[in-house]
């Protein structure tokens, strides 16, 4: 099995400062909400959009005497995610308390895994175009609790706190500083999201906050990053700033670009970058310091006395591994190899797991390239026009497959197929039945085509003379015949017969 198609690394993004050129170095911490029914340490529901404080157990509200009990499924999903990122799984991990005060954190600490995370080093291959990809190393993935939600705009003097999200399981996926530009950063989040959705461990819904990213940005002079990679010595890199809590790919790119330019201006002015936490303001298009966060940065981590170490068995990990689905890189490589698709088309078809499954059902036993063209150009185009996603497609894979089979068998022309697709899209029905009922079958009967050609020739003697002098005009006759047969005549047969009858 091919893990990934061959690729080269992209060039790092370069920003021209007032004095010299600079490169970007980016590392990310992505928080992915585990798609579980219940919370990490309590039996309360994780359902989004419930009435405030209704998905809260006394454990989540940190009532005295309540103890956390870990959700087995969440552990399994963290392991699954680790395996999907080709990462090492730690059979022994442990939970720590990260202490800070905030109204949406009733415990006064977040249960996390600082010292012994459940997942160790892995990698994500971030595709940047056919044959170009960035290998981003994953440092670790750990399990932790989400905090609650504060709403600040309901009252001028008060903040309102909803603990529904408190204690929901998050996987924090920490990358090494291997991302080299704003586009790569967005592509990295997109690729992670794609893998998580294939694995089914996180729904990847960025709007609902199921996937959020903290972005660490620093700048350096060309050549410095290569020295870091050789030595893994961070002193070759610049001082970084962390931009917190981004949940939009567009904002991630804008924030990185702005932050890099801010740092470059600072450095070229003879100043220094101060390591700090910053917040991106999309309205103003700039980042600003979160001073309050700095003060609270002393988290005084210590092992959580309420939880024993998390010990899992290699057999269990192996069983999870055996049950992994085919992942995007492998699927894409297989589409290229088995269906003869271009890397670009294979990338489009595998971008979304539902779309990939749809395509596979259409292509099964049929011409893969033809199927890819139809899914990408006709179906995706039409769905986009209606604002539907693939799961809402009114045309199911069997119906689209049926249309493609009719084209492959020569029963309908490509042009008629588009009309047929429109009928199936708007009215539904079995394509094979529709072509018979509505007389859409391609006329391959040469007798019928000859009769139509004869008719057109007899009706247009002047055109015949012109065509004999200028064979290029034969196309006009072909067009007339196609029109006369309602587009159902086999174009190749019409061409031949027209040429023969005109004596060309």
């Amino acid at each position, binding site marked *: 099995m091919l893990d990934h198609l061959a690729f080269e690394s992209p060039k790092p993004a370069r920003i021209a400062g007032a004095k010299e050129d600079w490169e970007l170095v980016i590392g990310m911490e992505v928080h992915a909400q585990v798609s579980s029914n219940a919370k990490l340490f309590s039996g309360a529901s994780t359902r989004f959009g419930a009435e405030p*404080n209704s998905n809260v157990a006394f454990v989540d509200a940190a009532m005295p005497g309540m103890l956390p009990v870990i959700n087995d499924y969440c552990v399994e999903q963290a392991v699954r995610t680790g395996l999907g990122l080709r990462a090492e799984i730690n059979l022994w991990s442990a939970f720590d308390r990260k202490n800070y005060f905030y109204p949406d954190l009733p415990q006064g600490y977040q249960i996390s895994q600082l010292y012994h995370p459940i997942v160790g080093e892995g990698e994500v291959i971030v595709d940047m175009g056919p044959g170009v990809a960035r290998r981003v190393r994953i440092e670790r993935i750990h399990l932790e609790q989400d905090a609650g939600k504060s709403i600040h705009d309901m009252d001028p003097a008060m903040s309102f706190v909803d603990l529904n999200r408190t204690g929901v399981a998050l996987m924090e996926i920490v990358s090494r500083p291997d991302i080299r530009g704003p586009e790569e950063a967005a592509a990295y989040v997109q690729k992670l999201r794609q893998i998580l959705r294939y694995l089914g461990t996180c729904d990847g819904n960025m709007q609902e906050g199921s996937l959020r990213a903290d972005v660490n940005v620093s700048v350096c002079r060309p050549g410095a990053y290569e020295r870091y990679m050789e030595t893994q010595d961070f002193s070759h890199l610049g001082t970084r700033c962390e931009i917190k809590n981004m949940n939009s790919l567009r904002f991630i790119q804008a924030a990185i670009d702005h932050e890099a330019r801010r740092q470059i201006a600072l450095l070229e002015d003879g100043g220094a970058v101060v390591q700090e936490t910053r917040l991106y303001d999309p309205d103003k298009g700039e980042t600003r310091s979160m001073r309050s966060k700095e003060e609270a940065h002393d988290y*005084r981590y210590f092992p959580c006395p309420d939880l024993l170490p998390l010990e899992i068995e290699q057999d269990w990990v192996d069983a999870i591994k055996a049950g992994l689905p085919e992942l995007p890189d492998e699927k894409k490589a297989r589409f290229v190899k088995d269906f003869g698709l271009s890397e670009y088309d294979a990338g489009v078809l595998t971008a979304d797991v539902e779309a990939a499954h749809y395509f596979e059902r259409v292509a099964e036993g049929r011409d893969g390239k033809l199927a890819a063209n139809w899914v990408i150009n006709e179906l995706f185009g039409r769905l986009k026009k209606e604002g539907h996603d693939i799961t809402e497609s009114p045309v199911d894979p069997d119906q689209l497959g049926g249309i493609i089979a009719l084209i492959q068998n020569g029963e309908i022309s490509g042009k008629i197929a588009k009309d047929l697709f429109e009928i199936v899209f708007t009215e539904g029905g079995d394509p094979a039945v529709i072509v018979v009922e509505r007389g859409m079958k391609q006329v391959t009967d040469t007798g019928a085509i000859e009769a139509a050609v004869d008719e057109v020739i007899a009706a247009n003697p002047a055109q015949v003379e012109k065509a004999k002098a200028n064979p290029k005009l034969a196309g006009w006759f072909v067009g007339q015949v196609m029109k006369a047969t309602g587009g159902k005549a086999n174009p190749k047969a019409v061409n031949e017969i027209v040429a023969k009858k005109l004596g060309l």
Partner: protein
Amino acid sequence: MSIDIETARKVAHLARIRVEEDRLPALAAEFNDILGFIEQLNEVNVDDIEPMTSVTPMRLKRREDVVTDGGYPEKVLSNAPDARVGFFAVPKVVE
């Protein structure tokens, strides 16, 4: 390790416990006594001894992913000094 007045002030702040300025020297001294007492543990040789994580011969219990709790917002909010339309209401905290 020695705790000075500045560290005592910081620890008090992180714990959100108000300590009057004139109490800080005594607090720092108490911290030092406690740490000194605990530091005696460093005298014990623990080479080749696995860290003990629990006094009970148990492994971490895990539960199934089933919703078994919640659905009582009125109870959750019943001790709140201020609650409005289902939310805890706290003095404004905004960046």
